């Protein structure tokens, strides 16, 4: 297990360098100049422009810029935002909890609904239940997030007025962040109604973000279950006189979970990508919205730093998933 983890870690370094190059190149390939954007409508003099360029190191050859950047990275320095002048890492950690909160709720929703639905569809294979579940999953899977988000806002926030349109909590409430997670902080604040407000702000974004992973997980669970239900050991379990609930919920599901866990792990990447859109739709102050805003401002340091951090998170999550995989599948553990 330890060697396994080490070998995975060894893979992370080259991936890391690759991502750093891509992130560095990507934002520079976009047309537009961060300094000119900073100046806005007024424009600026040529001297001032050259001065700022030198200050930010943009006058140096591009390869030199990259190696400066890489050197900084190895010292743990991801650079400073051109716009806010704050260190990228610091901004990231202020905004990251909002994204984690959203992504976590979404993945919890997607698994707690997707797995039982997949199991149900597999057990009732071919029935109207199966067809309904799989049909809905197909729709969910191909749902354009942006459109879906707007649709829900129009219905639930507009027509029905049940949920707020944007943000993490009503402006009525204010308290200093303790954990950065609004659900927890609102409880800690002790202010009446704060938690409910935070929760109601969370519902729609969570649903929107969970839609695709939920569909994927339901489909994967169904096919894994179908395969497992035909296995000899399921017949053995039934021949022991165990109840159908135990046969399906324990003997079959435990085996079906092995591929499903991998799928759930892969969904974390999908979630972070989805978070970019979802946060933009709901003005959710997380790293997704931060990235989008920074791309528009051509905030080089933030975009490349942010992409790198997101890549690290995805690699890290995949590592955890691999470990979990070994934990649930004894054939790998030993």
């Amino acid at each position, binding site marked *: 297990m330890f060697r396994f983890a080490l070998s995975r870690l060894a893979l992370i370094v080259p991936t890391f360098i690759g991502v750093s190059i891509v992130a560095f190149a990507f934002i520079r390939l976009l047309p537009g100049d961060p300094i000119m954007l900073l100046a806005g409508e007024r424009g600026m003099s040529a001297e001032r422009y050259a001065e700022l360029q030198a200050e930010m190191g943009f006058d140096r050859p591009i390869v030199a810029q990259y190696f400066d950047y890489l050197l900084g990275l190895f010292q743990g320095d991801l650079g400073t935002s051109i716009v806010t002048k704050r260190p990228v890492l610091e901004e990231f950690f202020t905004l990251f909890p909002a994204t984690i909160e959203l992504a976590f709720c979404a993945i919890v929703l997607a698994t707690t609904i997707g797995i039982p639905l997949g199991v149900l569809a597999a057990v009732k294979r071919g029935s109207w239940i199966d067809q309904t579940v799989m049909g809905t999953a197909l729709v969910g899977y191909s749902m354009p997030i942006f459109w879906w988000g707007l649709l829900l806002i129009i219905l639930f926030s507009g027509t029905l007025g049940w949920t707020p349109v944007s943000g993490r909590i009503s402006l009525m409430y204010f308290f200093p962040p303790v954990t950065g997670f609004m659900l927890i902080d609102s409880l800690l604040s002790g202010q009446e109604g704060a938690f409910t407000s935070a929760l109601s702000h969370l519902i729609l974004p969570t649903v929107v973000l969970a839609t695709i992973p939920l569909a994927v997980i339901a489909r994967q669970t169904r096919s894994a279950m179908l395969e497992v239900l035909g296995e000899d050991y399921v017949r053995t379990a039934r*021949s022991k006189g165990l109840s159908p609930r135990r046969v399906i919920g324990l003997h079959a599901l435990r085996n079906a979970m092995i591929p499903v866990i991998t799928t759930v792990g892969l969904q974390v990447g999908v979630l972070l990508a989805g978070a970019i859109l979802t946060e933009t739709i709901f003005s959710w102050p997380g790293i997704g919205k931060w990235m989008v805003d920074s791309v528009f401002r051509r905030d080089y340091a933030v975009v490349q730093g942010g992409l790198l951090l997101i890549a690290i998170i995805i690699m890290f999550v995949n590592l955890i998933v691999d470990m979990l995989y070994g934990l649930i599948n004894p054939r790998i553990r030993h």
Partner: protein
Amino acid sequence: MPILDIQNLSVTFETSSGPFKAVDGITLSVDSGEILSIVGESGSGKSVSMLALMGLLPWTATITADRMQFAGQNLATMSARQRRKIIGKDISMIFQEPMSSLNPCFTVGFQIGETLRQHLGMDRKARRARTIELLDLVGIPAPEDRLSTFPHQLSGGMSQRVMIAMALACKPKLLIADEPTTALDVTIQAQILDLLVRLQKETDMGLILITHDMGVVAETAERVQVQYAGQKVEEQHVKALFRDPHHPYTAALLAALPERARGRDRLPSIPGVVPGPSDRPPACLFEPRCTFATDLCRQTVKRQDEALGQALCNYPLVAGRPQNHPSQSHATDETRKELT
């Protein structure tokens, strides 16, 4: 009074190409303390008939029977819940592929203990003690260390021993062994068969031993039932069956035994395969492969009486000769021709 008594059991599967009768009017009975062997080629419905009795067939199967009685209880009319109180406890079953029959995610100790908890409500300590006892009984060395073993760490033979331990956990009255040695090495096969027979003698349970290997039958069984394409074609005591098979199919199976085929280059085998749903012959199902087939065999087939092993054949063999067969005279004609 037999422990298991089945009359006229049929199983029909609903398939995409229409209904398929995999088991066609099987009758069988087993006494406690007796070994009944069911022999037949692949596809002759041996497994399906046993799974029907265990209630383990998928919903596409329709089961009918005149009687399905186990230890005085009617299996045919009982609810699934009632049946679950019996299977795994009083009737248990082991399968052809021991390696894939154990759940890879759970330890050996857990899988045996689960049966004990389900049917006997034993607590953890009692389960552990009984599991060790069972593993010891089936000849697994260092049973205590085996409790936390996962199936993939066991060989095929060891897995089958674990399956046997699990099947015996609640001291069943009837054990169904569905080709328990087919997937194992030859040397291991003998060990597992010896183990099964020894345990059957010790516990006085009934044992149904399914196989397609006449060699296995010769070594273990008392009574033999030969099955072909879902039908019982013959039933005799093992010695009598080997001495004087009455159905041409049985005779062909015996002729394929290596020791009987001595002196030839290749083992004789029966040409053709068991008929499937699409190529089912009208009367005798063995007719396309039978050397004695006549027009009569395409119109009707007759069940012989006990003295002829209940053979399902128009011309049952006696001492290797088909009775009342039209070729009898014809054959003598030919011999005469050859002589002249």
